[in-house]
């Protein structure tokens, strides 16, 4: 299946990835090949098979809803690009 340029641009937008115009043709080609390849799955007879939710069919454990972590905001914010007064900074979103 050949994806269109428009489809690839819209996937990139959904994934919030900036892809330059001259890179698009390579992604159209590569992603089309990958989608073509995984389409082999169509021939699998999966009628009545439950989709796998866990490789060993285990369920998730529950724990007490209690605070177990100490506040380490300052330590964690050292990795942020822009911080002020303990807050993460982003470009203005409200006019």
């Amino acid at each position, binding site marked *: 299946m050949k994806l269109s340029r428009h489809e690839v641009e819209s996937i990139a937008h959904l994934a919030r990835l900036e892809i330059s115009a001259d890179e698009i043709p390579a992604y159209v080609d590569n992603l089309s090949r990958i989608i073509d390849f995984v389409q082999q*799955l169509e021939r699998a007879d999966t009628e009545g098979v439950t989709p796998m939710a866990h490789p060993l069919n285990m369920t998730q454990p529950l724990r007490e809803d209690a605070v177990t972590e100490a506040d380490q905001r300052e330590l964690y914010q050292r990795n942020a690009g822009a911080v002020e007064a303990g807050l993460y900074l982003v470009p203005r979103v409200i006019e």
Partner: protein
Amino acid sequence: MHGRTLAGIARALRAREFSSEELVSHLLARIERLDGELNSFVTVTGEAAVAAARAADRQLAGGSAPPLAGVPIAHKDIFCTAGVKTTCGSRMLDNFISPYDATVVERLRDAGVIMLGKTNMDEFAMGSSNETSYYGPVRNPWDLTRVPGGSSGGSAAAVAARLVPAATGTDTGGSIRQPAALAGITGIKPTYGRVSRYGMIAFASSLDQAGVLTQTAEDAALLLTAMSGHDPRDSTSVNAPVPDYAAGLGESLEGLKIGVVEEFMDQGLDADNAAAIEAALKVFEALGATVQRISLPNIGLSVPTYYVVAPAECSSNLSRFDGVRFGYRAKAPRDLEDLYKRSRGEGFGAEVKRRIMTGTYVLSAGYYDAYYLKAQRSRQLIAADFRRAFETVDVIVGPTSPTPAFELGAKVDDPVTMYLNDIYTIGVNLAGLPGLSAPCGFINGLPVGLQIVGRAFDEGRILNVAHRYQQETDWHARAPGGAFA
């Protein structure tokens, strides 16, 4: 000193044959001298390693030392290490200093292990040749024009070149076993849930599992015992006792039932590779095992199934990289969307972007049933095939990789060709089972791997099968010569 196994080093340190500081300094000098060409390390933590070695020497002298006191290893740069750069092979995390340790790192340190540094890897563990790393490709010490495999390529090359006796790795579709095979060493991927994934940067959370790359199965057993077990910080880590894997080594293989997958041996396996596998099966038969053909009728679906499930999970996991809280942040963003898009577009490499987009596509409205649910159904069929097979056999033995190490650049233009490297390993991840690769021969001077797969939580058995094989053969003891001798 550098040719010794991890078990040999642990014994020598206890016998005070040499000190941990002498060993660590020797290995750091080798890394300094030889790694320029190999590129197996992203970060070398020399000063901290020497300080830790001195502390271990004091413990060893005082008789209070933990089991692996003073033994140096390297960690794949996917494991968070407090205060040390943790890049995951990506520009996205080139500036990331982890504020905490992964459980694997913590447990190995508690067992006395010393970290020499962080090893190079395919970006976010997405690759089979270590060519997608932001820090450049790793070279195979057996032939510097060839790849070491991936994604744990730095760990594999460093162990093969005897820069470290062992290194950690992670395996989502073959990323420990395939590089172990291509570099002529031993590598084990445990059962899903055996080892905590806390602090291990996520790629595909239902498939990712941590393990080790070593010279021998015995070394793997020692490290796996130290790093396995329940961790409340990983909700998928299994709460089950961890056996002493090393104590279980040496048991007889008399009566062991080995299955050989006919779909692997009959379809397109290179004749020399098949001959190496057949020769290994003869060794097992001589040790009292029986060999029978088995069929995994749906195994042919595993690569396409994986390339739906893994990208879907990766597109979700990697959405955390937004340029705001950690990681690469684009300069002078126009607005919030521009910040997201350019931070991600500039911070991720081409293969990571391909996988995120593949995942986004298969999860998008209108395609979810046709791709994602279909793949999770066929994954169930693959896992059921393995379960049925393990009703009649104890282990499954076969090839790890379709070819020995290939040349740098040979497969970078076509992602699908690259993906087919993992044809023998991927099904094991989809079924959540433990798998190991051990060296079983050479083709034109390049190592070939033998894969041994076991039932869930049967790591002890596959380690013992590999260990008995290594007592009868010496493929695992061969090391690259030349500058690396």
